[in-house]
């Protein structure tokens, strides 16, 4: 498996004067990658550009070494795509027929497409329902059919665009579990595009944050969260302001959140806090570390965004 599955260079797409994505230069590693951003950030545009559904205005992209401008059919055969749109498929056909048909679009023979359609539907948990008409399927089941369609031709990369949209909590858990298992058990490269931070956090190890058509941050989720704002929360009985200023004077990064003083983590942070509190005579009622989540990273990034980036 290659170290990088997707490489883009100044990839840009404008819809007339409206920016879809602009100058995206990334090297997406193999494994699970979360593509995170608010609605309208450009996630779907980026994915559709990679699949050749829309042509980029400028820039280049390679998927598994294939150029999307000149070798798009090779790219398509190696990508399984779960579109965001709430498709109702062909309502009066069965799941089995539809998935097998999609396999034939990827060049599988008639016999192989039927066999693999059956396997894929079993894999996503629709084995018993595979001969039912798609019109009778619930939203969760349709999402699983989309996953079966994405899997049926055995792609190397699976791109899931908002796969948990409209799902109830159980369906959401099942879908994320399936996506996770595709990475861990089947060795697939999964790109999960979502505006739901928890979905990305639960299923992937690497995240890219996109907003207004530009990449704002990328990296391993653990590193992103560790580097950003892992903090120690402190609550004192009195002298909150004094402690805040005293900690600041010691060169620590501090701020107030509600009744707590948040102190950015460093190796001796607890020791420093106790020492300072003792010096000014503040009574500590609570001290505890708080791991930052991807949500914290996301929020801080969008706070920073108010100032120009790049």
């Amino acid at each position, binding site marked *: 498996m290659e170290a990088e599955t997707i490489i883009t260079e100044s990839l840009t797409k404008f*819809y007339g004067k409206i920016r879809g994505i602009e100058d995206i230069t990334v090297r997406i590693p193999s494994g699970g990658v979360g593509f995170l951003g608010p609605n309208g950030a450009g996630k779907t545009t980026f994915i559709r550009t990679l*699949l*050749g*559904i*829309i042509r980029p205005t400028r820039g280049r992209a390679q998927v598994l070494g294939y150029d999307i401008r000149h070798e*798009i*059919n090779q790219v*398509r*055969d190696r*990508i399984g*795509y779960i*579109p965001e*749109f*709430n*498709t*109702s*498929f*062909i*309502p*009066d*056909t069965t799941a089995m027929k539809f998935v097998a*048909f*999609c396999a*034939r*679009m*990827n*060049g*599988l*023979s*008639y016999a*192989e497409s039927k066999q*693999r359609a059956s*396997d894929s539907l*079993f*894999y996503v*948990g*629709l*084995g*018993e*329902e595979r001969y039912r008409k798609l019109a*009778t399927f*619930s939203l*969760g*089941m349709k999402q*699983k059919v*989309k996953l079966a*369609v994405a*899997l049926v*031709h*055995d792609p190397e990369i699976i791109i899931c665009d908002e796969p948990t949209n409209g799902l109830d909590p*159980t*369906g959401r*858990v*099942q879908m994320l*579990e*399936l996506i996770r*298992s*595709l990475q861990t*058990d*089947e060795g697939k490269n999964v790109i999960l595009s979502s505006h739901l931070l928890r979905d990305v956090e639960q299923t992937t190890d690497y995240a890219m944050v996109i907003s207004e058509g530009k990449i704002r941050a990328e990296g391993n989720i653990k590193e992103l969260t560790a580097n950003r704002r892992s903090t120690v929360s402190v609550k004192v009985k009195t002298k909150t302001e004094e402690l805040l200023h005293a900690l600041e004077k010691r060169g620590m990064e501090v701020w107030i959140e509600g009744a707590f003083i948040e102190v950015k983590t460093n190796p001796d942070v607890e020791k420093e806090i106790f020492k300072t509190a003792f010096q000014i005579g503040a009574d500590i009622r609570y001290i505890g570390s708080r791991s930052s989540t991807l949500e914290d990273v996301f929020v801080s990034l969008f706070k920073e965004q108010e100032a120009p980036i790049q």
Partner: protein
Amino acid sequence: MRESNTNSTAYVRKFSFRPFEGFRRGRVYRLAAVSWYWWIHQWERSRAIKILIGFLLFTFVLMNMFILTFRDLMLINPYTGEAISPNQLLEDTILQMIRGIVSFGMTFTASGDTSNGFSEASFNVGGTSIFILILVVLVGSGLISDDISNQTTEIYYSKLERHEYILGKFGAFFIFGNIVLTLPYVFEFFLLVIGIGEIDLITALPVFVHTIVFTELITVTYSSIVLAFSSITRRRLYAGLSAFMFLFVANMIVTSLAFTGGEVGLEILFDVLTVLLLSSYILTGTTTVRLQGFYEVNLTDGVGLESWMILGALGFYILIGFLIVVVQVYWRHGK
């Protein structure tokens, strides 16, 4: 709705994923596969289509029984009393039959033809053409509009090129056209050869070729127009009704003009079905046609309606229809 088995996550590891190690077929195979699937899906989804095709086959049987019963009578021209050769009878009958596909009233006949008039009075001519038109609309109207309303285009475009999608849709219609138009009339040709008897097949070869060429031309024209309407709306009902009105109403206007005794001139070019009908005469080398048996129109005299105008108009309709589909698929659906 039963979803009991999907409420458990135990299934995730129940079936392992089998890697695909086979051979991926080429683009032609994929194109043929999607065309066939889209046609079969139209067949499977509509009971009306099955009934109409069954009805058309029934009329074929009925017509052939009629022809076989009155074979001897038909070999004499009732107007002149002259004998008609079996080849001439074959030609008159099969040509009128295929022209009847695009004519509700059979508004034109070849000037000075030797037809014994049987074909014009047969059940097929002007009778089944309306059913064929309904069938065409039923099959073609949803081919693209359903994809737009069901939002399946996103899946298709992630697997196929846009031109493959377009060719697949035309391919689906082409399969339908061959099953419903070309094959039955080719079969009919041979039934007539057997039924009439004493046919010189070499002499009849041009008629056979015209049967294939003209039915294919009808398929191409219908597909271009119906798919154009299907690509501009997301509702198959609107697409179907618009296509039907476009083909049917224009044809009625031209026919009514003929019946009211008006001069039929270049306005005929606005009627796709009449243009198709006249193109059959042009392709068989007929230069003068009669409108409802009264008004003669010479297509090669350099005055008024000319052969090139008819063939040009037909090409224009086919091209415009095709261009609408292309523009819709590349421009509108691409956003």
